[in-house]
């Protein structure tokens, strides 16, 4: 009983943090603060996953999201006009419509989550919840999923190579024999 109360309290806190900081992203002026408000929101979601006994998923969410937010901060500050938040600025456009759509969506989803007739739990949760979730989602297609991961990585690498303004021939000359490579700064290893 006590544990349930603690879990509920922690859940409510984390949920409030997640939603609150998510909202803060649009309220703060500074891009750095917006990014890290989002990071805190994601960490709270990771915490909620931990409450669901999905340890691995929860921690991996934290890992991925903090890394992404750190890199995103770099780009937000590079591209946005008010990175340090020194000027007051508003990130809202078309306030009435946007607000009604946002609040409406939230009400529908939250209402659904609260009012749907969820089935009663029968039995106890399995030992390794993460493994069961994985099997449940991917099931017999596990090998395909792992293969897709490798394919996505190759796609990213190929896209980078194609998008790069400088190719091997720019770096190493037409016969690919120029050493050292003609780079603006020298790399650590390799030509």
């Amino acid at each position, binding site marked *: 009983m006590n544990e349930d109360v603690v879990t509920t309290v922690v859940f409510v806190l984390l949920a409030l943090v997640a939603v609150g900081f998510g909202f803060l992203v649009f309220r703060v002026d*500074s891009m*750095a*603060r917006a990014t*890290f408000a989002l*990071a805190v929101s994601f960490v709270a979601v990771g915490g909620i996953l931990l409450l669901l006994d999905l*340890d*691995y998923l929860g*921690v*991996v969410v*934290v*890992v991925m999201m*903090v*890394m992404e*937010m*750190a*890199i995103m*901060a*770099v780009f937000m500050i590079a591209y946005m006009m008010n990175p*340090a*938040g*020194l000027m007051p600025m508003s990130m809202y456009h078309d306030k009435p419509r946007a607000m009604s759509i946002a609040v409406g969506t939230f009400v529908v989803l939250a209402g659904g989550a609260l009012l749907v007739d969820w089935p009663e739990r029968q039995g106890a949760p399995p030992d390794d919840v993460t493994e069961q979730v994985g099997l449940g989602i991917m099931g017999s297609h596990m090998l395909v999923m792992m293969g897709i991961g490798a394919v996505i990585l190759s796609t990213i690498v190929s896209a980078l190579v194609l998008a790069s303004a400088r190719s091997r021939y720019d770096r190493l000359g037409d016969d690919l024999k120029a050493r050292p490579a003609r780079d603006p*700064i*020298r*790399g*650590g*290893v*390799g030509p």
Partner: protein
Amino acid sequence: MSELLLAPLALLLLAGLALVSVVADRALLARAAGRRLALAELSPWPDVARLLVQRRRTTTAPDALLWRTGGAGLLVAAALMLAVVPIGDSVIADLPIGIVWFNAMDVLLWAFVWLVGWGAASATALVGGYRYLAQALAYELPLMFALTAPAVAAASLDVREVVAAQGDRWHVVEMPIAFAVFLLCVAAFSLWGPFRAPAGSDLAGGVLAETSGVDRLLLLAGRHALVVAGAAFAVPLFLGGGAGPLLPEWTWQLLKTLAVLLLLVVVRRRLPVLRPERFAEVGWVLLVPLTLLQVLVTSLIVLAEAP
């Protein structure tokens, strides 16, 4: 041991080992300079007192919230890293995913160090913060793969099971590359030795540039704490935890942690600072394939030894 006692004990150990690392560092410094190794020379108390007495300072239009959060964050991350290291028989946080937790804590450093650089509103501090991200991009994947190797060998992400799986043969014997890369990455995320470019003196101190007094003390203490936490984590992962003849387990663990820590301290001043742009290529082109190969070798060993 009671969970309640364990946390303060762990913090005490953290502080104690950090003190050892500082003293060892000063000893090496004194020896290189030809000065005598007296207590006055080795004691870090003057440096701490100096920072306690020094006033804090600020800059025009800093982002104080982010700045101070980042500053305090290093110590917090180090303490959280220590939460999954088994101390003797018990662990503060008996997580089944201890290795990934350690990884998560070192990723938090990406945010904290960048925030310190950003919050100071100073050109050199900002460049230092960005340098840290550049370095982090280079070492993070090798670190993740180096952490994967012992997990594969033990078929578990739980640190205690990794210790148990080592038995007679320590992981450092079958995965030396993973061990070396892990130590390298510990130095890298702690802004230690050859990886201190983000706090380098060429940038007037980089992320440390505008900090003074207590803020600076927190950052410097955080660096030492991180190295200690990393060294402490290397022991259960690669060096067999508390395994060893004659002496009790916790003694062995302490001795091994000290050994790794001293190794890191020796490396600190020996090597020149690696420039992040040079290290980036090393990290991606050299370390990632090496650690992947290491994981492959480990997997083959596991398959070969499977009953």
